[in-house]
């Protein structure tokens, strides 16, 4: 089972501060034996004690608290899983992250870079095989080359060609050469746009993620469009301005994704203007059903409005969001501390996100527990994306809003008793719940967490 990391961090910080356990314990107002247990991760530390220790060590509480490195640790576990023959000591991952955060960060960064590059190679390989633009370009170039080769061969090897015909063949060579040049230039531009060497970001979805992170997931320009509904032209103008001011986007597919996201954001903002929404959200304690009723929107729209906003602007609790289509493809994501969304591969099938497809249009509210005992409140619903049509299957997307369980007091008025927490993971490969019946891939952690409640769900 995953241990707390706080003790390891405290020990490292104390050593860096050249303090003895006795001295730190005295200044923090606790006994040296208690501090010893904390430092060896045998006692949890939080609240006033953690604050006192952080104050004595002169470091931010967040640098000692659990969970701050969960994403990094997940990456380290994934890195070990990705190179099983190396035999990395997976049992010591958390120790590594706690004692050598810089090295851990570097390994995690290198691993992410490798995975991104692998994903890019796969994507490029797929493109070479299936991309209609490439197929058409290459076919066109071969046709140009065929005409040039055949015509020049005639001019070179046949003497008795009439002057008019000779001139015509010269014209053909000139025309086809120009077309060949144009095709080659198009191909070069096409490949140049495949990767951004500055950031290493390769896929359009990751570029969208980077764009949203750059803007803190909120767009004040679109939040208050005024009372009168903005026209599509006005929205398009603002969207273009945001894109021009943000990170450079050259990939057409990325540009399409960002534009679609911002247009959706604008529609949500028009239906739920920022100031009204913020007041209403506080008044009804962020109850999505009530907000959907007040503003006459879908729950998905409310989820998006709650998750995609800059918390600094609204003082709302941070909320994560995952949206997926029925095939499990991630369409949109807004990460939240301690709840990592897998960058590659499939997420845990026990997420309410996926289970909501079994009962479309029925909202679910579930207490979730990740390995490491981090608890979250998960709200999920699958909704049709277009009007139903006879004889056509519904186009369902599912959305899952995630809040830290610690924020439950903010929802106290409407939050029912959530009962026992559902054990879930992030992805199978780094999930220690070895006997989970939903497992699709072997895990590499070498430890087990009892999952008595999973098989019955």
């Amino acid at each position, binding site marked *: 089972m995953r241990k707390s990391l706080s003790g390891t961090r405290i020990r490292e910080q104390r050593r860096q501060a050249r303090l003895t356990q006795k001295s730190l314990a005295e200044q923090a107002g606790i006994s040296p034996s208690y501090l010893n247990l904390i430092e060896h991760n045998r006692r949890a530390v939080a609240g006033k004690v953690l604050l006192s220790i952080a104050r004595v060590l002169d470091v931010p509480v967040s640098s000692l608290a659990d969970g701050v490195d969960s994403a990094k640790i997940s990456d380290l576990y994934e890195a070990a899983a990705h190179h099983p023959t190396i035999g990395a000591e997976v049992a010591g991952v958390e120790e590594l992250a706690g004692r050598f955060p810089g090295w851990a960060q570097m390994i995690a960064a290198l691993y992410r870079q490798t995975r991104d590059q692998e994903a890019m190679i796969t994507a490029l390989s797929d493109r070479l095989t299936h991309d209609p633009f490439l197929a058409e370009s290459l*076919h066109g170039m*071969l046709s140009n080359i*065929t*005409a040039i080769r*055949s015509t020049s061969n*005639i001019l070179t090897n046949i003497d008795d060609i009439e002057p008019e015909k000779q001139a015509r063949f010269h014209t053909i060579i000139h*025309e086809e050469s120009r077309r060949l040049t144009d095709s080659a230039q198009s191909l070069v531009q096409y490949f140049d746009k495949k990767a951004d060497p500055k950031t290493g970001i390769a896929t359009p979805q990751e570029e969208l993620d980077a764009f949203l992170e750059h803007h803190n997931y909120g767009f004040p320009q679109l939040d208050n469009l005024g009372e009168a509904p903005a026209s599509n032209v006005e929205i398009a103008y603002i969207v273009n301005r945001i894109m021009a001011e943000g990170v450079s986007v050259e990939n057409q597919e990325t540009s399409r994704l960002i534009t679609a996201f911002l247009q959706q954001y604008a529609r949500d903002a028009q239906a739920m203007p920022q100031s009204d929404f913020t007041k209403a959200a506080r008044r009804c304690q962020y109850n999505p059903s009530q907000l959907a009723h007040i503003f006459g929107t879908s729950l998905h729209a409310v989820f998006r409005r709650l998750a995609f906003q800059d918390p600094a602007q609204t003082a709302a609790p941070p909320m994560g969001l995952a949206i997926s289509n029925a095939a499990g493809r991630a369409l949109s994501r807004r990460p939240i501390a301690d709840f990592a969304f897998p960058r590659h591969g499939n997420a845990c099938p026990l997420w309410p996100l996926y289970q909501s497809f079994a009962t479309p249009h029925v909202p679910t509210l579930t207490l979730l527990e990740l390995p490491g005992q981090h608890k979250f409140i998960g709200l999920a619903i699958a909704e049709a994306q277009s009007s139903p049509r006879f004889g056509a299957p519904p186009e369902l997307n599912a959305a899952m809003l995630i809040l830290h369980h610690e924020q439950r007091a903010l929802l106290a008025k409407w939050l029912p008793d959530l009962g026992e927490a559902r054990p879930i993971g992030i992805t199978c490969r780094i999930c220690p719940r070895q006997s989970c019946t939903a497992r699709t891939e072997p895990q590499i952690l070498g430890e087990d967490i009892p999952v008595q409640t999973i098989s019955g769900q």
Partner: protein
Amino acid sequence: MIKRVLIIEDEPNIVESLRFLLEREGLEVTDQPDGAKAMESIKNTLPDLVILDVMLPNRSGFDILRDLHNAFTAPPKVMVLTAKGQARDRLTAEEIGVDLFMTKPFSNKEIISRILGLLA
């Protein structure tokens, strides 16, 4: 008797060079750039040889090849001339029935020699 060749190809400059080379050999040449009109041209001209591209507008060369075998008990000879030179394309053409499969770009000397061989 003069042999007739129908070139079904949508690249006019390739048609022009092929026409020049074949007419020099005493062959009568017609062409059709539209895949959908290929069968009509074949029925109208009754060529001894069809030179058939695969990637054509409106109807693919493989579909035309199938149409040809369905429409004639003794179809004209067919040479597939294509930029799609992968093994599976060659296999597809051979499964439907083709006399010769050549890829672009081609050598003038070789293509003329192979065509004259087919028509001999």
